[in-house]
């Protein structure tokens, strides 16, 4: 044995020690600690979202209004990039070279950035050109989305538009992720949950460069995208389009309702805009233009504009008075070109006098309704003005005033019928009486309503005492029922029997010489209507008309507002009668063509 032979043991010991350390370390790494397994999985997995197409939107007759077009986002897989003709690509994409370089740098610097498209929503032409030459640009690929496409470019206020979610939306509903689309307004907003469908998820295996290497665990965790549900609107596309055409030179609204169902047949807010403007890459630019337009095309006049109802309110007061026995159908009042009482003077136009209730409606006599309103408010049965007023207001509320009706559109306004406290504040408690608020008799003063509420009023009168909440959706695919609030019958607080005289008055207003709306008369269809003038402190009054037809078994109830149209008979009544005629006969009779022509050729927008 030589001198240093025992050093073999030390060397052997070192080897065994290192081996032991490795084994202990490996045991902890591989058996005890399980976090590395998760890391390995998230390393190699990439979730891809499969976007379903939004549900299609049809009109009540099955005419397709809104569908989808595929849209392609251009993305970069940074590590698959090879040399390519930058100038040519920039030319196709119509961007400058620096921007492309910046984008490539962006995705190369941050591994997560590669999911962000470099260009969103390529136009079909650009996509076509690129697709043909894709082999020239390795590392560029497309991801597919869908965008709204409008077969009929109408009803923008009903449909609303689709936009990209922001961080607040994501906080509110965790379904959404950055880059998702959702309905911002209109039916797209109200029925978002049905229209959007369900996003699908695909898990792909990727390598270190983000290249796809097949599906993860044979797609065990993948979920399929569920298509959005199709929706059938209550809208009649042709009637809607006709209404938009009639209103193209006016500011205002048309609302047409099927009285016995509450289904909205047309809802025109003018000025309108082409819904295709708020789609795709141009959306933000166009939105800014529309938003800054002084005529406010984005504003929904039908559900958000508040006007005094004017004389269309007279039937409401007539019904209330009959219900409260304040007057009877045979009560007559004199009218000497107006109503005069203790410091109050409300003018009227020239018409026969005295008149009973039916003829007062026919001639829209202000004096009659002032007397009638006074009888209601000063009804001794209630022992005071305030109680009588509250009772009157209750009838109005039952007819859908002073609160939003609940149509399936966002941001609907409710209008305004003052509470007694409102007058107490102005005049002092107990210091106001019927004469103080006498302008309510003829629908002026503090009362404010939306065009939708007036259309609903026409429907109530047509139905002789009930209504269904106006709504825009008739059918949702795979659901088969609509919200029960739209199928609940609302019976108003006026007995059916009291409607006859009002209906007859409205019939005479249109069809009997001396009526205020003779221009709306149709030879075959008995249209019942009531004109109105909504006082406008800022300029010429607004032309208002509400109507329904036919008188027996009504099919359609309409309200029309034309801003600055002055008299109900000058614009609103002819437009309403054209809508009714179009809907019921599908055409305009030759003897009424001149009315249509005049409505189409006049222009009140120039006045502005």
């Amino acid at each position, binding site marked *: 044995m030589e001198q*240093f032979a025992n050093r073999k043991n030390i060397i052997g010991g*070192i080897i065994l020690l290192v081996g032991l350390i*490795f084994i202990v370390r*490996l045991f902890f790494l*591989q058996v005890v600690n399980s976090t590395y397994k998760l890391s*390995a*999985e998230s*390393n190699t997995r990439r979730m891809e979202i499969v976007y379903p197409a939004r549900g299609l939107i049809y009109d009540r007759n099955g005419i397709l209004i809104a569908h989808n077009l595929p849209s392609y986002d251009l993305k970069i897989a940074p590590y698959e990039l090879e040399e390519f003709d930058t100038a040519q690509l920039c030319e196709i994409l119509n961007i400058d070279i620096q921007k492309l370089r910046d984008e490539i740098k962006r995705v190369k610097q941050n591994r997560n950035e590669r999911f962000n498209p470099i260009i969103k929503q390529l136009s079909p032409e650009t996509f076509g050109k690129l697709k043909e030459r894709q082999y020239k640009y390795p590392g560029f690929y497309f991801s597919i989305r869908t965008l709204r496409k409008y077969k009929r470019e109408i009803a923008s206020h009903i449909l609303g538009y689709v936009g990209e979610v922001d961080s607040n939306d994501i906080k509110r509903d965790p379904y959404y992720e950055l880059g998702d689309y959702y309905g911002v307004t209109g039916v797209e907003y109200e029925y978002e949950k049905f229209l959007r469908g369900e996003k699908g998820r695909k898990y792909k295996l990727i390598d270190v460069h983000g290249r796809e*290497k097949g599906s993860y665990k044979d797609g065990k965790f993948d979920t399929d995208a569920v298509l959005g549900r199709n929706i059938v609107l209550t809208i009649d596309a042709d009637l809607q389009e006709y209404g938009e055409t009639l209103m193209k030179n006016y500011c205002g609204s048309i609302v047409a309702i099927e009285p016995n169902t509450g289904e909205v047949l047309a809802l025109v807010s003018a000025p309108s805009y082409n819904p295709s403007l708020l789609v795709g890459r141009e959306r933000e630019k166009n939105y800014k233009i529309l938003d800054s337009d002084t005529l406010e095309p984005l504003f929904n006049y039908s559900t958000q504009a508040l006007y005094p109802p004017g004389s269309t309110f007279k039937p409401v007061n007539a019904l209330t008075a009959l219900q409260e026995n304040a007057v009877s159908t045979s009560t007559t009042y004199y009218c000497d070109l107006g109503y005069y009482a203790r410091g109050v003077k409300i003018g009227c136009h020239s018409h026969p006098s005295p008149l009973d209730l039916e003829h007062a409606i026919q001639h829209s006599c202000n004096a009659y309704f002032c007397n009638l309103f006074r009888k209601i408010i000063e009804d001794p049965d209630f022992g005071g003005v305030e109680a009588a007023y509250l009772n009157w207001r209750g009838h109005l509320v039952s007819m859908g005033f002073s609160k939003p009706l609940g149509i399936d559109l966002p941001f609907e306004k409710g209008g305004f019928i003052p509470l007694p406290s409102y007058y107490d504040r102005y005049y002092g408690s107990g210091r106001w009486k019927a004469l103080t608020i006498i302008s309510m008799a003829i629908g002026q003063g503090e009362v404010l309503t939306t065009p939708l509420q007036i259309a609903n009023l026409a429907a109530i009168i047509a139905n002789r005492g009930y209504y269904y909440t106006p709504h825009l959706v008739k059918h949702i695919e795979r659901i088969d029922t609509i919200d029960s609030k739209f199928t609940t019958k609302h019976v108003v607080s006026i007995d059916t029997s009291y409607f006859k005289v009002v209906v007859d008055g409205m019939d005479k207003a249109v069809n009997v010489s001396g009526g205020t709306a003779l221009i709306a008369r149709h030879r075959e269809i008995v249209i019942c209507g009531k004109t109105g003038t909504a006082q406008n402190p800022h300029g010429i009054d607004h032309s208002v008309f509400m109507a329904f037809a036919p008188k027996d078994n009504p099919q359609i109830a309409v309200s029309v507002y034309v801003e600055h149209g002055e008299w109900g008979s000058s614009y609103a009544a002819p437009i309403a009668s054209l809508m009714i005629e179009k809907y019921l006969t599908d055409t305009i009779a030759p003897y009424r063509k001149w009315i249509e022509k005049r409505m189409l050729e006049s222009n009140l927008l120039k006045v502005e």
Partner: protein
Amino acid sequence: MRRQINILTNTDWFTVILYLFLVAFGWLNIFAVNYSPDDGSFFKLEHRYTMQLLWIMICLIMILVIFLIDSRLFSFIAYPVYGFSIFLLLVVLIIGTAIHSSKSWIMLGPVSFQPSEFAKLGTALALARYLSGYNVKITQTKHVFASLAIIAFPAFLIMIQPDFGSTIVFGALLLMLYREGLPGWILIFIVLVAVLFLAILMLTQFVVLSILGGLGIVLFSVVARKPLVFIIALLIAGAFSGSYYALSYYSVFETKNIYVLLATLGFVSIVGLFYTLIKKIKGTTLIVLAFYLSIGFTYSVDYLFHNVMKEHQRNRVNVMLGLESDPYGYEYNVRQSKIAIGSGGFAGKGFLKGTQTKFRFVPEQSTDFIFCTVGEEWGFLGSFGLVLIYASLLIRLIILAERQRSGFSRIYGYGVISILFFHFAVNIGMTIGLFPVIGIPLPFLSYGGSSLLTFTLMLFIFIRLDSTRKAYLI
């Protein structure tokens, strides 16, 4: 004197079988890393697994050649082989091809070759020849220096390629010198200096000084054989630094943590010196002196690195150390490597099922990080088995070396053991995060012709020497 013996019956088949197993297992893992279903024909040299198979064939032929050679020849050709490898190292510096910024490769047509691998064999042979020489004793200083020179020459040539990993492999031969009688403290000293050098470059000055200080106090108390000294020194250090901070807090003067540390260490060491002088303890003066030298070394390396060296030289050192060569940041390799091994679990994901392997998350996976694939696809069972087989091989080689009658065979055997052990320890150590990432291959498993051939030649020359141990007494 010569005896006729049967080579085959005297061959150590246990070692041969371990070798064959390692090579075969290595090839399977290289296949797992590089195979892809759409690879097309197996017989294409662009596939690494096909290429490696070719190299394995060449190795088997070389083994045959080695067994046909008279074993006495190896001692005679030791110096020529060493000289030839030095020649190759000089050639590669001139006509070499740079891969990963190291000029380490000679390209001969389709075949590339790494002279630094071959130099390991040459150096092991030359050192064995020198130390087995008549009258050469490693206990004598001049022989120590001559041995170190034999090691340092090729190591230096490799360092300027630069290939840090291969350079430090030559340091492993110190283990062989140790077996032959190199004083133990020299081994420990060199290891400590190397560790300190790495620590200075990889850690902050504050941490290095703290560790040095702590180590010094521990050693001092051990040498003084008074555990209480340790606690007292800590108390003094705490009191001193505390009052230092207090003074600076009341704005007597401004300070930095590093100054507080230096002042504290200085104060404690001076107290220690006085204590040594009063109590007349042996050896503790040396500790304090060594401590001062270490601090001096720390500062000079730091100064050299940050003030004398130019930016590009610094980068070169960093690249050499593998500190900044990583595109995803220094930690990326190790993290991915640990994820790969850790995700293998107890039984592994199965052959060809490793996702980390398949999708190339670990750079250099078929070469330096081949152990990741073992860990991921074969699990704890596989990696445990591999470590066990490696340790068995090394222990077996020690047994073989110790039974040699000739000094040359034994010393050469330890050369092989030292180099294999160093590769094994550093390579697996770095893949499981116990060692800094120094790019050296795992012998017999890693992809690469030069290293496979070199290790095969190295091992089988020893097996051949062993097979005739009874026949000759050289």
